[in-house]
């Protein structure tokens, strides 16, 4: 700060700095190119009001809007990643974690909340895709299992919103084992006759799709989400032919019998509440 600025009243200083338009006040829909007012999009759960394109939504925001207002309490928030293999590619895994945390405010790629869904107690978790592509490493696996254990202890149903590229390469075999760790815990939930609703959102691929995401008692998907085991690019390189139109999109999965239904994001809350109430008995409390 120069001596001049020090004696100039602060009011003038603020005036001198021209206030720019806040970044991202307007958003362009990636599907129909419509220019949309951000606040309006947010009110609409990041769904384009013009073409119904489902844009990505932050995990925390999704859960806040899914659960009853003011009912959510975060679970397993203290579980944090480690770097067991001291993994380093062009950047250290440790540094990638720090950066991802800074960019997203999350400690890892899964957020778990306990709360009420139209008055019914549930545990809901959501993948944060911005955190290293929503990849599943040890923390995601552990938090998912803790979510299940909370359900088992308090006899509550589980809802999961997947958005993930798959297993996290930087934790190598540890990540792979999370597929079995989460699936084995889901088996316990299933044996306790507690319902699990899996919602696959764009994208749900690799190790997450080939484990917890496909194991719902009811499997739902948002419209036009990319869902599959292998990524389209890998398949293209393997088979060397053009992939069919709409390949690996929700509609393709519905047609091939992999999911129960496609549900618009704005209707998910009501739909899941209705499903759970029937599975649990009319008052939504497990028998």
């Amino acid at each position, binding site marked *: 700060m120069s001596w001049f600025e020090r004696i100039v009243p602060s009011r003038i200083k603020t005036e001198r700095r021209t206030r720019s338009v806040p970044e991202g006040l307007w958003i362009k829909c990636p599907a129909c190119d419509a220019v949309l007012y951000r606040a309006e999009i947010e009110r609409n759960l990041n769904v384009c009001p013009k073409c119904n394109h489902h844009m990505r939504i932050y995990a925390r925001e999704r859960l806040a809007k899914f659960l009853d207002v003011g009912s959510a309490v975060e679970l397993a928030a203290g579980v944090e990643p*480690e770097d067991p293999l001291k993994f380093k590619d062009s950047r250290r895994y440790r540094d990638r974690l720090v950066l991802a945390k800074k960019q997203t405010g999350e400690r890892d790629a899964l957020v778990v909340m306990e709360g009420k869904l139209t008055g019914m107690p549930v545990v809901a978790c959501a993948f944060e895709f911005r955190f290293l592509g929503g990849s599943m490493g040890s923390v995601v696996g552990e938090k998912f299992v803790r979510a299940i254990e909370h359900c088992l202890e308090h006899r509550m149903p589980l809802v999961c919103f997947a958005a993930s590229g798959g297993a996290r390469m930087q934790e*190598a*075999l540890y990540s792979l084992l999370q597929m079995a*760790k989460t*699936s084995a815990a889901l088996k316990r939930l299933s044996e306790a006759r507690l319902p699990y609703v899996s919602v696959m959102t764009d994208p749900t691929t690799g190790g997450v799709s080939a484990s917890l995401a*496909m194991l719902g008692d009811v499997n739902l998907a948002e419209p036009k989400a990319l869902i599959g085991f292998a990524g389209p690019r*890998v398949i293209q390189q393997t088979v060397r032919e053009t992939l069919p139109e709409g390949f690996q999109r929700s509609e393709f999965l519905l047609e091939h019998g*992999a999911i129960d239904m496609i549900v618009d994001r704005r209707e998910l809350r009501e739909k899941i509440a209705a499903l759970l109430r029937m599975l649990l008995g009319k008052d939504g409390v497990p028998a």
Partner: protein
Amino acid sequence: MAMNFLEFEQPIAELEAKIEELKFLGADSNVNISEEIKRLQAKSRAMTTNIFENLTPWQITQLARHPQRPYTLDYVSMICTDWQELHGDRMYGDDLAIVGGLARIEGTPVVLIGEQKGRDTKERVRRNYGMPKPEGYRKALRLMLLAERFRLPIVTLIDTPGAYPGIGSEERGQSEAIARNLFEMSALATPVLSVVIGEGGSGGALAIGVCDRLVMLQYAVYSVISPESCASILWKSTEKREIAADAMGGTAERLKKLGLVDEVLKEPFGGAHRGPQAMAETLKASIVRHLAELKAMPVPQLLDARQARWRSFGAFRAA
């Protein structure tokens, strides 16, 4: 069959070629070169020992994929009697990349399931390079449920580059097939022993690997992704596969140190393909021992231990 040498074995290959040449010369000349041959053979052994003591993870990956490495059916023929292969998933087809059936190991009946690669080009195509499709995993699950019903222990031999990434695989639910196996295997009321005999390629390997005990052969590898794919994603170049293999550390020795594998079986000098019979003996002894231990456990205790085992995997900090 002539021995196939990998790139890093070239010095050994050259020496062996020289020895062969000398043997050939020695046969139709009067000059006694047996001393020289002996000297070179000793040198070759020393060189092999030296190379194999300092293998990099990438070199071990190459050994795990060695075209002459024993595959599932080779071990079946060496360690089992009365092998009855059972086919098909009862829903769509019979995937030849996974074989399974009833067999006896030292007289005891087991259900044995394994991924199967092909030896020559025609067989490789028929076996789809050991990359199973959903029907393969569903066949495996069908056989595992059969084992559970008749209280037979399950042995799975893992050897795959990964589950097949194709259009048909996706149409028929590759993800669901793998996920279902993980889910069901975690609660099968019978002992499950898995052995990685070659390549443990990601979900395609894990889908028959949710076990009570995990054994790996010394030069087998097990990881979340192949070094080539990892390199192409993280380094944007498959050329970095050696570095990627190092970083992921999917070798038996490393995984044992991390506590992710229960036992590592030492391979014969120069790798399993140089002594298949000896390897099979070691493998058989290990299978017999583990199954005896597992069968001694009451089923509820076995299932609790399996749940606890899988619950425990992970490296994280918790407040």
